[in-house]
């Protein structure tokens, strides 16, 4: 059973995620280093959903990968649960833009992959995998191969895989970017539904203003490269979010605010 895993209270009032003056510069041979992120600071609270919103190439994906431990920051503090993140953590789950499923494994075996790596692929893991697949509407597809699934279905499998080990922090890099708009809207509701059931903290990178506002508690708007936080929007809309909320005045106002922060509207 997935259920709620731990209380939302943070020990000593310290936020779940703490980022201070995070900097990232990529060295370039024969040139000055390319500074992609220049001083990003914000706090992430347990159980919250934060979106990183910004134009292409602004550094938001780089920031997510730093938080995921896949690359190292050049400077600043990146702490999750009090630990400085320098490598991938066991209680993180990552969803990439491409599903990255292994074509030689069935759907179920793909979902179980993280548990296999940890050598914990027993009955409990199997039950969780089956439940997750059922939650995303893929019951009956356990034995199918990825090649037999559509892009949206594959991404749903990737989502299950990211959740099977019950991560505390779910990191998502434009997970619905490769999908058509209707599928994307379905997936957004699915994500919110699952998040509700698992209580994970989520950090999602997107370049869609409406996606960011619809899904999140807070939206960190990234400026153009070198990235800083242009605006930090508290969405304030209640959960569970309904598709109709996209069309209420408050929503539009928030989108407008994001647009101003991005510099695309006045």
């Amino acid at each position, binding site marked *: 059973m997935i259920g709620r895993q731990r209380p939302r209270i943070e020990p000593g009032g310290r936020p779940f995620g703490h980022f201070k003056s995070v900097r990232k510069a990529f060295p370039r041979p024969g040139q000055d280093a390319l500074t992609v992120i220049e001083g990003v600071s914000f706090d992430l609270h347990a159980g919250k959903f934060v979106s990183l919103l910004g134009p292409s190439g602004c550094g938001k994906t780089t920031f997510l990968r730093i938080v*995921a431990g896949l690359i190292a920051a050049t400077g600043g503090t990146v702490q999750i649960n009090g630990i400085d993140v320098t490598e*991938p953590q066991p209680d*993180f789950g990552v969803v990439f833009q491409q599903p990255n499923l292994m074509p030689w494994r069935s759907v179920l075996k793909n979902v179980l992959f993280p548990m296999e790596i940890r050598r914990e692929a027993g009955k409990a893991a199997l039950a969780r995998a089956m439940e997750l697949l059922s939650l995303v509407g893929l019951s009956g597809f356990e034995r199918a191969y990825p090649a037999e699934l559509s892009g949206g279905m594959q991404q749903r499998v990737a989502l299950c895989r990211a959740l099977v080990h019950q991560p505390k922090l779910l990191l998502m890099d434009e997970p619905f970017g490769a999908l058509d708009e209707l599928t994307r809207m379905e997936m957004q509701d699915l994500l919110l539904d699952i998040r509700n059931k698992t209580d994970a903290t989520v950090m999602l990178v997107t370049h869609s203003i409406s996606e960011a506002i619809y899904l999140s508690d807070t939206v960190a708007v990234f400026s153009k490269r070198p990235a800083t936080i242009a605006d930090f929007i508290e969405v304030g809309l209640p959960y569970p979010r309904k598709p109709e909320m996209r069309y209420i005045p408050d929503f539009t106002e928030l989108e407008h605010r994001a647009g101003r922060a991005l510099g695309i509207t006045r």
Partner: protein
Amino acid sequence: MKTMHVQRSIYPLVGIVILLGIWQAYTYFSGISQIVLPSPAAIVLASIKQYQLLLQATWPTLVETVLGFALALLIGVPLAVCVANSRLLNLALYPILVATQSVPKVAIAPIILVWFGLGINSKLALAFLVAFFPVVVDTAAGLQATPVGLLELARALRASPLQVFMKVQMPAALPFVFAGAKVAITLAVIGAVIGEFVGSVSGLGNLVLSANSQLEGPLAWAALVWLSVLGILLFSVVAFTERLLMPWAEAGRH
């Protein structure tokens, strides 16, 4: 759908029958000697009459080919793993591999004969030498072609290097290994036959030479046909194994 299947079998068959018909007619009407160009009918007749002889000759060639091929896999795959995972080994070994491949095996066959004698070993060695290169190159290419997304996934999941190798790289490389194996098995047959041509006492290649030297055209051609069939059969076995071991490859195509 059914018509397509029928078409697929019927058309090649019709083509072959027509070709054989033309061949048969030509030998009949031109009066050409059976030593120079035997008719299909004569070849079939020789196959039936000399069945025992042909079968006896098939066995050594089969053994040489299969063992040479197996050796190429047993040595080639681990070598490819080393070359793919170590930049040093890659730089050191690859040029040597290419250089040895450039030497025509036909040219070194007599030397191999001197080294290994008239028996099965020299043929095995030649079959191995020709089959070895495609196995190494294709396997190494496969290992280096692991999709970056999967490697990153494995890293995010904190997989150990051994886990990455066994669970990601090797399965991802399997299609490439089979591509190399399919080329290798066909080349192994050629290698074995080259060995038999240069010096042997048994085998289908040997039979082609001896039948030819005794001016028994139909028998020589029958041996050729059997060699061809042997090659096709062995290739089919590898292709079948490929479909068996990679069920997912069919999944996307329906």
